[in-house]
C-alpha cells in the first residue's frame, strides 16, 4: 500500500506589515514539497498575502496582535488556515463582494477576497465580531509527469 503524504506546520507572528513578505515566502517554501508549478506557487503566495494583510489592516487595524497560519499538505492538496483575534466581520457575504472595502481612504480596492477565491480552489470565511476572523483556503497541486510516479512507487514498496 502506498503511504499518503501528509505534513503540517504552524506559524505565528505579530501584525506588522513587514511580516507580509515573510509569511508568503515561508508558506511557499512549505508548499514547495508538493512540487507545484511556478504559477501555482505564485497564486498561493498572492492569496496568503491577501489574507495576512487583511488580518493586519482590518482585523487589528494596525494595532499589535498575533496572526496565525496553520498549513496542511495532504497528498497533493494544500490547506491553509489564516486567522486573527481582531475586530471580526459583521457581514461576510457583503465583505466578499468584489470592490467592497471599508477602507477606501487607505487606497484599498476591495479585491482581496475575490483574488483569494479565484487563485485558490476553495475559500471559507468564519468571523465573529469582537473575536476575530479565520479564513480557510485550499488548492490542489496538479500531479506532474507520470513516470516520476512509477519511480516513487518502486521506492515506497515494502
Amino acid at each position: 500500500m502506498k503511504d499518503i503524504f501528509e505534513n503540517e506546520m504552524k506559524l505565528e507572528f505579530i501584525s506588522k506589515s513587514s511580516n507580509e513578505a515573510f509569511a508568503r515566502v515561508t508558506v511557499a517554501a512549505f508548499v514547495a514539497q508538493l512540487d507545484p508549478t511556478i504559477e501555482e506557487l505564485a497564486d498561493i503566495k498572492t492569496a496568503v498575502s491577501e489574507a495576512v494583510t487583511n488580518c493586519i489592516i482590518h482585523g487589528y487595524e494596525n494595532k499589535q496582535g498575533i496572526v496565525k497560519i496553520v498549513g496542511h499538505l495532504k497528498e497533493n492538496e494544500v490547506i491553509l488556515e489564516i486567522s486573527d483575534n481582531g475586530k471580526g466581520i459583521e457581514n461576510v457575504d457583503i465583505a466578499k463582494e468584489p470592490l467592497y472595502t471599508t477602507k477606501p481612504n487607505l487606497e484599498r480596492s476591495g479585491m482581496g477576497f475575490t483574488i483569494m477565491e479565484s487563485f485558490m480552489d476553495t475559500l471559507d470565511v468564519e468571523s465573529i465580531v469582537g473575536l476575530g476572523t479565520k479564513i480557510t483556503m485550499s488548492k490542489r497541486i496538479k500531479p506532474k509527469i507520470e513516470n516520476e510516479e512509477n519511480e516513487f512507487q518502486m521506492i515506497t514498496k515494502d
Partner: protein
Amino acid sequence: MESKFYEEDKLLVFKITDEIDDCSVQKIRRRADYEMERYMPKRVVFDFDSVTFMDSAGIGMIIGRYKFANIIGAKLEVSKLTQSVKKIFEMSGILKLIPVAHDIEQDARVF
C-alpha cells in the same frame, strides 16, 4: 523604484523594482506623488517589468496615482505587465480605465 523624467516629452517613467504589497506601496506612493508634483509631466508611465510579486495593494496604488495624475493634468499609463500582474489588473477591471503603453520600450531603455 527608479524614475526618469524626459523633459522634451514631459514624460515621467517609474520603473517599479520592489515587490508590491501593503508594506511597500506606502514608499512607492509617496515618491510617485512627490515627483509628479515636482516635474508636472503630461504623461506618466509605470513600468512593471521588474515586479516579481504584486497583490491587491497594487490595484489601489495605481488607481490612487491615476487620480493624482488627473489632478495635475497628466495621463497615466502602465507598461510591461508581467503575466501575474496582468492577471490581477484584469480581474479588477482597471485596464478598461488605464491604457497599456506599448511605445515606451525605446524611452525606457535608459534604465
